[in-house]
Each structure stands twice: as structure tokens, then as C-alpha cells.
């Protein structure tokens, strides 16, 4: 999973596979981080809740 595990090789298989994997993980991670941070900001601005929007 990480380049420091002993079975890691810098070959096409690892680059393509883990490239795709980390790409997907990053999108998910960044997307969720964005949502959470934005929600915190929105909340602090007093948006949302109790149907007042």
C-alpha cells in the first residue's frame, strides 16, 4: 500500500493501481473535508437548522 512496504516495486502495475487508488481516496478525502469545513463555516455564519433558510 505504501512504497516502504517490502513488496513494493516501482513498476507499471504498482503505479497504475496505486495511482488510481490514491486518486480516488484523495477525491473522497478532499471532498469530505471540503464539505465539513464549509459546513462549519456555514454554521458559524448562522445558516441552516430549524427550517429558517
Amino acid at each position, binding site marked *: *500500500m505504501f512504497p516502504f*512496504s517490502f*513488496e513494493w516495486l516501482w513498476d507499471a*502495475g*504498482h503505479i497504475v*493501481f*496505486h495511482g*488510481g*487508488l490514491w486518486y*480516488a*481516496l484523495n*477525491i*473522497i478525502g478532499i*471532498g*469530505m473535508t*471540503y*464539505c*465539513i469545513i*464549509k*459546513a*462549519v463555516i*456555514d*454554521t458559524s455564519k*448562522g*445558516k*441552516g*437548522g*430549524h*427550517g429558517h433558510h
Partner: protein
Amino acid sequence: MDTALIPKGVKRCPMWQFLLGLGIVGAVLLWGVYAMLLCWFKGLNQTNMNDYYGFALWIWADLAVIALGGGAFFSGLLRYIIGKDELKHIINYAVLIGFICYSSALLILAIDIGQPLRGWFIFWHANVHSMLTEVAFCLSCYFAVLTIEYIPLILENRQLDKVPFFHNLSHNMHEIMAVFAATGAFLSFFHQGSLGGVAGVLFGRPFAFREGLLIWPWTFFLFTWSAAAYGPCFTLLITWITEKVTRKKLVKDNVIELLAKISGWMIFTYTIAKICDTTRWANITAPGLGQNLADFYTGNAFYGYWILFAEIVLGGVVPAIILISAGLRKHPTWRVVAFFLGVMGVSLNRWVMVLQVMAVPILPFDTWALYYPSWQEVATTLLPVAYGIILIMISYRYLPIFPQEAELNPIEEETSTAVEAHTKSAPDLEPAKA
């Protein structure tokens, strides 16, 4: 008693009825949990698996639920990427069913492995050449996506939505849901395919082995295709069952017919591809390895040519024809028959690609290995079913799963308040703002 939690504008069964249902299914769940604990603490000797039958009943269940859960990614793809807007009325349920299917699949895998405490080695010491590694990664990631898709739905619960942070979070997640849906489709494409690859790459087993494209055997594409084709069938079948159980119309026919039609064409094209694949395999691949169809379908007490017929004709050609012909599709009974046959067909395909693969002898002097599951296997396989029903029961009761429910089932008494509630809560019921 729990009215404060129930979405506005809809009616739910009395608490006692709900708890009774929960209790009955919960008993099955507990039975499954007991079997699961037996497998974990006493080991897999609790099953009837053996060294010839290393993959058995629950791996079939695993593959089947993943295929059936394909409705989530394909509906998401159609809704968010292709832009079939009507599908927003069923996407919540598709997501929920997908979430259930995938969480079940992961649970089954956790029971299936001999050393569950080391299960994470599949990530840590990943062998990128293994289809199973691909499955594990994409499955876990896609499960994360499904969770992300399911969370806003939970947050739309009447009480949770009152918390400003949750409301905002839910809103923001809806905003970028297309990104998640796209990622989910990408991941699904690979893990559905890899699951097909799991059998297709077995060049030691002529029954399973297929040639293919680059590193992917044809089964890779067939599995993705079939999941996309049959997944919606399952979503629609479960929707139909839910409608029968709740005795309510929950989704409008135009939505159902649209998804059914897409599913029908997908099944149609898939079945053609499957027939081509089977023909090539039966005439070129397997004979090239010294085996012919008779070696695979005769000489044992269970696996005959009937299974090939049941899978491809009954589970492929027939539902495809029903669903692509407008007349039959619009007929509720035919439509449901098609859903049922489709679900059976794809489940049978996964059965064949797991269980029959294990059963067929390869060494000329070996014999068929037939197997029947132990009660522990049956219980652990029913466990996800019970769990799924419970999650659907709870979700249906407390979350606005079906956006059209209130409209289709106006509450007749207290009309004025209901209308007020309806108009007021309409935005709450709006599931997605893409």
C-alpha cells in the same frame, strides 16, 4: 411515541407493529450473529467448506449482493452524470440498498477469511496483480462513497436536520454529490469487474478461465455490465416488495418504467455479450485446454445444462425482452416477473462463477466436489438479509427515502395540517440538489 422522528406528511405503522416486525427479523439477525461468532471464535471448521471448496455459499452471497447493489452506482451514474433527473425519486432507495449490499459484502468477507485480525494485510501488503486486492480496495472505497451518499439522507431526519451543522453538512454534500457519484462509478466499474476477474483469471480452471483485453479477462467486463444491468432490477424489485409490504405506492410509474427500460436494454446487450462469451468459451477456450461442455455439465448430481439455460435464457433473454418491449414493461405483473427473473439470472451467474467453478474436476482422475452448506453458513448468509431488512425498516420509518410518498399517499384526516405540513416540509423531502 416516535412521531417526532417520523418525516412530516407521511404515515407510519403503529409502534407495536414496527417493534414486532423488528423483533422477528432481529431474531434471525441474532441467529446469524451467533453463527458469525462461532466462525470467528471456533474457526471456519464450523462451515462445510473444504480444501476443494474454498469458496462457498457466502462468497456467492457476497458476489450476488455486490452485483445486486450495483443499482446504486448505476442509478447514481444515470442521475448525476447522464442527467436522468426523474431518477432522483428512486436514487435514495438505490443508495440505501447499495449501502446494505456493500456493508453486507464487507461483513461476509470479514467472516470468510481465516484470520480476520489480519484482514488489513490485503491493503498493507497489497499484491497489485491480484484481482482480489483490486476488489478489496475498490470495494472499501466505494463503500466509503456509499456511506457519503447515505449520510445526507440520515441527516435529513426531522430531528437531526434541526441541528444547523448537520443541515449544512447535508446541504454541502448534496452540492458536490456528482463528484462522489462519479468517483463511485469509477470504483464500481473496477471492483465489479475485478470480481469477474477473480474467476476469469484462474487459468488453472478451464471452467472459469477466459481470455480478455490486456490484463482483464472478459468476465471483468461482463461482471461490470451485468451489475449495471441487473442492479436496477434489484432496486426495482425491492421497491416493489416495499410497496407491497407498506401497501402504498411509493414511486411513480414513470420513474420505475424509465429505470426498467434502461435496465432492460442493459440486460439485452449484456445477454448478447454473455452468449458470445459462452460460445467462444465452449468452442475455443475450453477445448483448447482439452475440455468440452460435457465435462462441465454432466457426470454429477447437480450441475447440468439446465443451469446454463436458466442463467442465460430465463435470467437474460426473457427479462430483457419483457423490459424492452413497452407493452410488457408497462404491465405491472410482467414487469415484476422480469425483475425477479433478472435477479435470479445474475445471482445464478455469480453462483456458477463461484460454486460451479469449485465443483468441476480439473485433474482427469479427480471427481466432482459437491458441497452443501452447514447451518452456520446458512445463518451467516441470512444475517445480511436480516440486517438489510432492519436497516430498510428503520430508514423507511424515520428518513425521507421516497420523495414522492407524501404526494402519492396524501393523509386524508386532518387535511389542513397535512397540507400545511406537506408544503412546509417539501424542501426537507427534496433529496438532492445537484
